[in-house]
C-alpha cells in the first residue's frame, strides 16, 4: 500500500509542479494588479498630455487675440490680427514633441466684424456702451504619436465699457456730474487699468482733471463711481470715458447726462 502511494506521488509530481507554478503565478499577478490599482486610485490626474496640450494652445491662441485686439484698438490695422495669427500658426507647426500639428484660423467677417475685429465706440452721445472685440474660429489638427486630434473651437475676446449718469446743479451754478462706469471682459466684470473722462463744452471735448474735483471710487468688482463738477451753460452734459482694461485693450463710450 505504502509503495503504491509513493508511486502515485512520483507519477503526479510534475502535475503538482505545474499547479504550484500556476498558484504562484496567480499570486504574483493578483498582488501586482492590486498594488497597481491602489496606486492608480491615488494618482489624481487621468488626463492624457495631448488634451492638456490642446487646452494650452487654446489659451495661447486667446493671448494672440488679446495682443492683436490691444494693437487694433490703439489705432493699428485690422490686418494685424491675421498677421499675428499667421506667425503663431507657424510657431505651432514647429512644435513636434507630441506629433505633427497645424493650427488653421478664420477671422469672423459679418455685418459687425471686419477681419475678425469689431470696434463699436459709438461716438453719438446716447450710446452708453463701447465695445472692442475680436472673434476667430480655429481648427487644430494634431497627428499624434499615439492618437490624432481634430478640434474646432472659437475664441472671442471682448472688452465692454458702459457709462451712465446724471448731474445735479450746485448752489454755485456748477453742475456736479455723477457717473457709473462698468468694465467687462467677455461679459464678466473686469478691472480697468486706466480711465480718463471728458465732457463736451461748445463742441470741444475737455479732459476732466483735479480742477474739476474728480473723484473715482473703485468698487473692486469692475464698477467705478465717478463724480466731478463742470461749469457749462447747456442743459445736458455730454460725457465720454476712454479706458484701458488690464489687457491694454482700449475702449470708449459716451453718454449724455441730464439734470436730476
Amino acid at each position, binding site marked *: 500500500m505504502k509503495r503504491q502511494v509513493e508511486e502515485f506521488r512520483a507519477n503526479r*509530481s*510534475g*502535475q503538482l*509542479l*505545474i499547479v*504550484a*507554478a*500556476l498558484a*504562484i*503565478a*496567480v499570486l*504574483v*499577478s493578483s498582488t*501586482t*494588479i492590486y498594488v*497597481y490599482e491602489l*496606486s*492608480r486610485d491615488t*494618482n*489624481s*490626474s487621468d*488626463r*492624457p*498630455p495631448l488634451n*492638456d*496640450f490642446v*487646452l*494650452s*494652445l487654446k*489659451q*495661447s*491662441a486667446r*493671448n*494672440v487675440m*488679446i*495682443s*492683436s485686439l*490691444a*494693437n487694433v484698438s*490703439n489705432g*493699428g490695422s485690422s490686418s*494685424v490680427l491675421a498677421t*499675428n495669427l499667421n*506667425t*503663431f500658426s*507657424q*510657431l*505651432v507647426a*514647429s*512644435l*513636434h*514633441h*507630441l506629433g505633427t500639428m497645424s493650427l488653421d484660423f478664420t477671422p469672423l467677417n459679418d455685418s459687425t466684424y471686419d477681419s475678425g475685429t469689431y470696434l463699436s465706440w459709438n461716438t453719438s452721445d446716447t450710446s452708453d456702451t463701447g465695445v472692442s472685440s475680436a472673434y476667430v474660429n480655429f481648427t487644430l489638427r494634431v497627428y499624434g504619436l499615439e492618437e490624432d486630434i481634430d478640434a474646432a473651437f472659437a475664441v472671442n475676446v471682448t472688452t465692454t465699457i458702459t457709462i451712465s449718469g446724471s448731474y445735479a446743479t450746485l448752489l454755485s451754478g456748477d453742475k456736479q456730474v455723477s457717473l457709473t462706469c462698468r468694465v467687462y471682459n467677455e461679459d464678466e466684470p473686469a478691472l480697468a487699468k486706466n480711465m480718463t473722462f471728458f465732457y463736451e463744452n461748445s463742441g470741444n471735448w475737455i479732459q476732466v482733471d483735479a480742477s474739476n474735483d474728480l473723484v473715482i471710487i473703485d468698487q473692486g468688482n469692475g464698477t467705478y463711481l465717478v463724480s466731478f463738477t463742470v461749469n457749462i451753460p447747456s442743459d445736458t452734459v455730454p460725457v465720454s470715458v476712454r479706458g484701458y482694461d*488690464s*489687457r*491694454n485693450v482700449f475702449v470708449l463710450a459716451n453718454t449724455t447726462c441730464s439734470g436730476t
Partner: protein
Amino acid sequence: MSRGNRGQVRIIEAFLAVLIIFSSLAASSSLTATQNRAKRDDLSAVGLQALMKLDSDGALGRLIDEGNWSRLRDAVDLAFPAGVSFNLTVYDEGIQQVNAVVVSNGGFNSQEVVFVEYACAGWGPVFHSYVIRLCLAVAA
C-alpha cells in the same frame, strides 16, 4: 509510459512551470511600465498646467519680453510642487534661443526626465510669440 519517457515528460513539465511563472512576471513588469508612463504623463501635465497658469494673465509673455529671467525662474519654481526640478529654455519664432542665462532650479538627480513644449504669446500691443521647452524631473 516507460521509465525512459518519464524523465522527458518531467523536463517538459518543469519548462511549463518556469514558463508560467516567467510569463506572470513579464505581465507584472509591463503593468509597472504602464504605471511609470502614467507618472511621466502626470508630471508633464503638472508642467503644462503650471505654464498655463502663469500665462493666464499674460505674466509669462511679459517676463520673457522683459528678459526678466530671475523672476521667471522664481515664478516657475513657485508654480511647481516641492521636489520638482526644472530647466526652461525659451525660443523665438525663428527657434533661436532667447534666454542667455540658465533658467533652472538645480540639477537633475532623477533618470525620469519629462519634456514639455508650450507655445506662449505675449499680451503686449507689439506681438511676440515664443516656444518654451521645459525639462522636468522629480528630485530623487
